[in-house]
């Protein structure tokens, strides 16, 4: 596999990373690779995978969204209150997703028309959205999500949890949108070269607002999963998870410099992080290593990314050099003929 296709298919590298990780842990603890455990890891990854996919879309536009944890908490608390007070689940899902989109649009408007750098804008809403959830709940957590809704978290189809299926479908949807539609290609174009994209007629502001809206919807979807899997939600829900979501996207090959990456890669990065943390239990490594492990994985991914990029640049320079030298003798001959 040459470097260029390696870079083009970074998610393949991440998926191989997951496979290698599972095989390595399996050598020590065969039970780690048991289907039931792999399904459990998939199930545990769902929340992070959704957030990572949303973050990835924003990062592709060369922005960043650090408010996803707060959006998860706020939309989840609204959803939890609605479910607890007897609002039908379908209506709740629609309202929660719409709220997520609205929160994302606020981020997008601030970044585009407000001209606030995305890190600053979403840091602001990181605090503001969490503050709002405090106002709504007065600090208390929302308990007693109806058992009927929690049953969604336990349902499965062909032995695979329903929520895992739903997230796979959602990711395929976002992936097709990004890869196969004109608007989706505009997301990459905007991240790769915003001014250039603008010049060729891409409505870059609209694209960026859309990307933040997608991130908001993903956070809201993660909140709906949270309610089904956890059955209660507190104001602390999702605190600090934005860093894990961004890490998952980067591990999955989404470049922080924009224009590169896929939501599948981001989801694979999320699987990798969850599997790595969960492997600690199997390897008998004390729990307080978890953060260190995630940090180390992220550094390795960034390092590998930088190396691959550098090697690629180097090769490009070499190619050009060679091209010039191979062309040179011909040119010299031509000159001779002319003389």
């Amino acid at each position, binding site marked *: 596999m040459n470097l260029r296709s390696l870079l083009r298919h970074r998610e393949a590298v991440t998926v191989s990373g997951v496979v290698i990780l599972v095989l390595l842990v399996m050598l020590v*603890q065969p*039970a*780690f690779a048991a289907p*039931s*455990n792999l399904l459990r890891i998939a*199930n*545990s990854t769902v*929340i992070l995978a959704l957030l990572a996919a949303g973050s990835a879309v924003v990062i592709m536009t060369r922005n*960043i969204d*650090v408010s996803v944890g707060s959006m998860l908490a706020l939309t989840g608390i609204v959803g939890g209150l609605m479910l607890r007070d007897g609002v039908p689940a379908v209506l709740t899902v629609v309202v929660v997703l719409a709220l997520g989109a609205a929160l994302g649009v606020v981020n997008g408007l601030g970044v585009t028309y407000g001209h606030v750098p995305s*890190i600053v804008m979403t*840091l*602001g809403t*990181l*605090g*503001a959205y*969490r*503050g709002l959830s*405090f106002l709504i*709940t*007065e*600090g*208390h*957590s929302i*308990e*007693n999500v109806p058992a009927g809704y929690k049953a969604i*978290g*336990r349902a499965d189809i062909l032995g695979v949890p329903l929520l895992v299926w739903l997230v796979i479908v959602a990711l395929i949807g976002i992936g097709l949108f990004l890869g196969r539609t004109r608007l989706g290609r505009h997301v990459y174009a905007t991240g790769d070269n915003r001014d250039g994209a603008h010049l060729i007629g891409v409505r870059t502001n609209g694209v960026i607002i859309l990307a933040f809206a997608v991130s908001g919807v993903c956070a809201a979807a993660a909140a709906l999963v949270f309610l089904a*899997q*956890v*059955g*209660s*939600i*507190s*104001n*602390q*829900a*999702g*605190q*600090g998870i*934005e*860093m894990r979501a*961004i890490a998952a996207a*980067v591990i999955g090959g989404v470049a*922080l*410099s924009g224009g590169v990456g896929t939501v599948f890669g981001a989801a694979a990065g999320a699987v990798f992080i969850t599997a790595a*943390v*969960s492997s600690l*239990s*199997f390897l*008998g490594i*004390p*729990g*307080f290593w*978890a953060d260190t492990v995630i940090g180390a994985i*992220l*550094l390795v991914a*960034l390092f590998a*990314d*930088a190396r691959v990029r550098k090697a690629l640049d180097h090769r490009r320079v070499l190619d050009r050099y060679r091209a010039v030298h191979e062309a040179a003798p011909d040119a010299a001959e031509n000159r001779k003929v002319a003389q």
Partner: protein
Amino acid sequence: MTGAIGIAAACLMLAACGSGDGDNGGSSDGGDGGDLPQVAFIPKLTGVGFFEAGGAGAEAAGGDFGLDVQYRGSAEASVAKQVELINTYTSQGYDALIVSSVSPDGLCSALKKAMDQGVVVLTWDSDTNPECRQFYISQGTPDQLGSLLVEMAAENVPTDEAAEVAFHYSSPTVTDQNQWAEVAKGIIESDTEWEIVDTVFSENQTELAVQQTEALVNANPDLKAIIAPDANALPGSAQALENLSADGIELVGFSTPNVMREYIENDVLDRFALWDVQQQGAMSVAVAAHLLDGNTLNVGDTFEAEGFGTLEVSPNSVQGYDYEADGNGIIVMPERTVFTADNIGDFDF
């Protein structure tokens, strides 16, 4: 790119600091305080039923004791946030600080500075090093609470048979939970045939608590008991056992009745324990009021606190410390409660 992440991380911390003021428990600091002595009652973090209940108890007791008690915390359990709060209230001239500490020594210099300025400094729920406060209002000594954990687990798991048990609580730096777990582990090693297979942490995050427990159960198919002395770890573990339909695992720990009610009713677990945290908040305020009245307290002294009967100052050694000094010690709450299906209906916090 690493730089970008670094900047992002630094900014996140800043943002978290910046949002702190809006996050407090919603107490009023309007003019109603008047000339009453001001007391800040500080939790590890806000938004957890346990601390909210303690705060409610403390604020209510403020009225009884003629103090303006304000429940003030941050949404994030961090040393930096608590130090910031302590410094703020010290410089604003508060008369007393009552803190549930996230770290044994992280708050020390801020608290010592407060004491130097004549502020009454107490801890509740989770202590600092004893030289950094005057009195610790304790929910029970580590011996009492650690052995309570083992006793609860032993109700269903015979101590004379080999069994795998695991611990699950918030973080490796939390003073109180570490102390209980250490005592419990000591008892398990010396008095039972059980084997401790793992200790996992969930950092006050319920979804992490669910995932960690599911991983724990999968990694240890013969696990017989999980001991979860943390208000997030216990409900998270219960939800995980429900998700996995794992019947053979006994779960015990500490959390609040309102959070655990559905799991008791669904038979996911048989019993868990806590102390009356509203009463702990109120008792902390009673001690602060006694000291703010100009009284001194030393080890062995007793005093009458309205509504609590006779309270006694114990030496720091009951909590396992070496440090003893005048005007310094521990006041232990008289009782703790084990909640079961029979009595959980009597509690609402």
